[in-house]
């Protein structure tokens, strides 16, 4: 017996790749021993030579699906093959759904309960598949074999660690059905996906021939919690009962779903946009542009922008009636604003094209940027409060006097940069929509946002009549300036809070410390104002700020991260076992960012105070597992509980096995637990 097990442990290492082919094929068991009456995963690992590819289940317009013929001993059965998320390859306009790199097809091998432990089980398979380059195709055949040993029933199989990676490459079941409509030769598929989920390069791979035209361009839009794919319908699309397929939402990340006939809103009706327009027409882009300009205009009254702008405007009035100078300054300010908006938009588009899941105000996700903004806003606030004078903003001083246009340009750039924290909450969705437009159109919308932001000042500069209507400069201006420091300090307060949320209380203290140092430095500057080298005292403050930036933690310490809705801990098998052994009731749930049902339950049920109260009163421990990236341990846990995907809600009463709760939760389901 011991000898047999030893042999069993060794054989998988000798799984033979078929020689001489363009795609090396090998058979790999997930465990050397398969317990009688249980299943182990089996992988068919395929490794194409460079330049060669194999095909997905639906090969696309050309190519072929692999077929497998098993040669199995009595008592052994295998399931259907599962395919990892494919890639697209277009050769001369013909779409191929392929794998250009090493990949593994997975299946489950089941040993019947009556197979005696220790029985040697020789497995064989003949795989017929097509290997192609972009020039030629070769049908290949691989004969692969391996031995496993039947284990004693109930013994958990040893898992090969490579299977975690194989499993992670598999598409995840979306868990809800999509809808589709076919009209005028076009197919539109609506896929429920949380609006909060960022997707990169989305593409819908149809599983069956004939539903969609593989080679046609797919246009993808978001409308709230729905992602809409529109493309040319395939030859069999009319009268289809279902369209099954795989939606990719990022590199190697795919969701399996089935769509059924139903209403799908016309593509290109993002949140907040006006409907009834023909998709993608120039009219739509003009409308979006107008929206962006309006949004930018609104930004002027935001607490972080208004003080800068109003003072700048007043300084313009104070500068007198120099017509040309005013116009130059207004144009320079506009250029500063628009360029910063374009730069932020351009970086954003670049990052998106590179596959990063970022949204507007992405730069605010970095605590270092928040720190810079905090110091900047604090500095501006102190300036407004009168602690010191700053040439560019205060106006009438050396720099502005020497080159008003240059000062105005930097004021504009500053206003646009400082404005971004305010854009996030109310412009985020609309700007997110801009991101999926063609580059030029998207950049036009960012520029429009900047133009809107610059518009009031631009008008003041260009229209003398408006300038004349500004109140006469006087002592009241200083008073207004002091008052305007209040919204600036409020903005600083908000930024400090964000810093604390992002990087923990230490980082917040660090940021506030740096702000204090800056304030002291600026105070000193103010005292020395007018003397030569008045700015010298600022050097140590800047050095301190720089040091703070280097040491500010980039992530919140564990436990201080954005919490799952219920105050809970991250799931692990060990933690679950530990809590259960303590005799505590445990509520365990699994979620994923792309899972709409999960999000609905979390918002509508898990976040309710009744639930939290009920759990606290009964000392229910909460564990949450995030399967967004297909964590293998969670995948195994789900499989052990008969699920292929999320959501999964479980309740462990003390000393009892798990009770699986419904996928659509109600408050009563949770408050009623254990009573």
């Amino acid at each position: 017996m011991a000898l047999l097990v030893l042999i069993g442990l060794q054989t998988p290492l000798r799984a033979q790749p078929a020689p001489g082919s363009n795609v090396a094929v090998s058979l790999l068991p997930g465990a050397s021993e398969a317990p009688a009456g249980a299943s182990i995963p089996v992988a068919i690992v395929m490794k194409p030579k460079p330049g060669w590819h194999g095909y997905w289940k639906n090969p696309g317009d050309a190519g072929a699906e692999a077929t497998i013929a098993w040669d199995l001993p009595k008592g052994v059965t295998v399931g259907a093959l599962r395919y990892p998320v494919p890639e697209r390859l277009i050769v001369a306009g013909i779409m191929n759904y392929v794998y250009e790199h090493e990949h593994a097809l997975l299946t489950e091998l089941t040993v019947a309960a009556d197979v005696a432990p220790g029985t040697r089980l020789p497995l064989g398979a003949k795989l017929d598949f097509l290997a192609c380059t972009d020039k030629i195709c070769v049908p290949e055949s691989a004969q692969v074999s391996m031995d496993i040993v039947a284990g004693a029933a109930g013994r958990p199989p040893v898992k090969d660690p490579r299977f975690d990676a194989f499993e992670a490459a598999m598409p995840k079941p979306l868990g809800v059905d999509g809808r589709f409509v076919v009209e005028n030769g076009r197919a539109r598929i609506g896929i429920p996906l949380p609006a909060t989920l960022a997707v990169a390069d989305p593409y819908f791979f149809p599983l069956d021939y004939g539903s969609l035209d593989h080679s046609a361009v797919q246009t993808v839009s978001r409308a709230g919690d729905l992602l809409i794919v529109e493309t040319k319908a395939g030859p069999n699309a009319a009268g289809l009962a279902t369209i099954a397929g795989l939606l990719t939402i990022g590199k190697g990340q795919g969701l399996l779903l089935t769509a059924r006939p139903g209403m799908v809103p016309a593509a290109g009706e993002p949140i907040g946009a006006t409907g009834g327009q023909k998709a993608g027409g120039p009219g739509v882009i003009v409308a979006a542009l107008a929206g962006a300009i309006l949004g930018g205009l609104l930004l002027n009254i935001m607490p972080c922008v208004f003080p800068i702008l109003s003072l700048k405007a007043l300084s313009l009035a104070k500068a007198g009636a120099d017509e040309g100078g005013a116009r130059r300054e207004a144009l320079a300010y506009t250029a500063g604003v628009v360029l910063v908006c374009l730069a932020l938009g351009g970086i954003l588009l670049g990052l998106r094209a590179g596959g990063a899941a970022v949204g507007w105000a992405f730069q605010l996700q970095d605590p270092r940027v928040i720190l810079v903004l905090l110091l900047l806003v604090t500095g501006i606030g102190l300036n407004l409060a009168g602690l010191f004078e700053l040439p560019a903003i205060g106006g009438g001083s050396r720099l502005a006097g020497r080159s008003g246009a240059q000062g105005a340009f930097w004021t504009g750039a500053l206003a646009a940069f400082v404005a971004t924290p305010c854009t996030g909450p109310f412009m985020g969705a609309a700007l997110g929509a801009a991101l999926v437009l063609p580059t030029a159109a998207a950049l036009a919308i960012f520029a429009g946002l900047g133009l809107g932001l610059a518009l009031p000042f631009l008008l003041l500069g260009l229209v003398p009549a408006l300038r004349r209507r500004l109140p006469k400069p006087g002592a009241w201006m200083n008073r207004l300036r002091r008052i305007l420091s209040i919204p600036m300090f409020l903005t600083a307060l908000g930024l400090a809070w964000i810093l604390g949320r992002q990087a923990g209380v230490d980082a917040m203290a660090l940021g506030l410390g740096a702000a204090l140092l800056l304030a002291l430095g600026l105070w000193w500057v103010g005292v020395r104002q007018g003397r030569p080298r008045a700015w010298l005292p600022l050097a140590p403050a800047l050095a301190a700020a720089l040091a703070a930036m280097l040491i500010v933690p980039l992530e919140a310490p564990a436990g201080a991260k954005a919490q799952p809705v219920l105050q809970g801990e991250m799931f692990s098998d060990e933690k679950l076992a530990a809590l259960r052994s303590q005799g505590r009731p445990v509520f365990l749930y699994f979620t994923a960012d792309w899972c709409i049902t999960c999000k609905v339950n979390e918002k509508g049920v898990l976040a309710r105070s009744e639930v939290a109260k009920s759990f606290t009163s009964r000392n229910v421990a909460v564990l949450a597992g995030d399967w967004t990236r297909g964590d293998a341990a969670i995948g195994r846990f789900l499989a052990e509980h008969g699920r292929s995907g999320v959501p999964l809600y479980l309740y462990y009463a003390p000393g009892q096995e798990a009770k699986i709760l419904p996928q659509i939760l109600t408050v009563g389901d949770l408050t009623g637990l254990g009573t």
Partner: protein
Amino acid sequence: MKHLFPIAAALLLGCQTALAAPPIGSQAPGFSLPDANGKTVSLDQFKGKVVVLEWNNPGCPYVKKHYESGNMQKTQAAARRDGVVWLSINSGGAGQQGHMNGAQAKAFVAGQKAQPSAYLLDAQGVAGKRYGAVTTPHMYVIDKAGKLVYAGGIDDKATANKADIPGARNHVLAALGELKAGKAVSVATSRPYGCSVKYAGG
């Protein structure tokens, strides 16, 4: 507003010539191509006759499956017996695998004892793209009224294995039989299978 497809993919797709697959029941697109002897052959000279189009690439394993087994020749012979016009078309671009000149095409037809009415050379891919031909073989049947009545694979066993031929449904023969009997074509589309057409510039 339309959320266009992410830029990279759009650029990738943008530089290709569009393949247009005409829907079943529509007028079959016309074309004029040189045959293996250099003579120009136009689709419209076969008005009033049933026409079969076969996209061909002699080097493709799937084409070999049907020629080396004699299945394609048998299908051609059966069609020709009923007065059907059979046009084999090679849309392989110059320099691409499977591209042939007139002499090579004649040698292929003679060597395989193939029986097309004509073997047409479409090195520019004009006819291929007009029909949305994506694989070799890719089969089309045009009825006497010039309407497209079948587009797809030669049969329903999408493999390169000759042993699969006897058990397969030959969609082209079935369509021709139904046309002859005055019935509607029951399977009007199927998945075309094989190697991709090696268009020029690909």
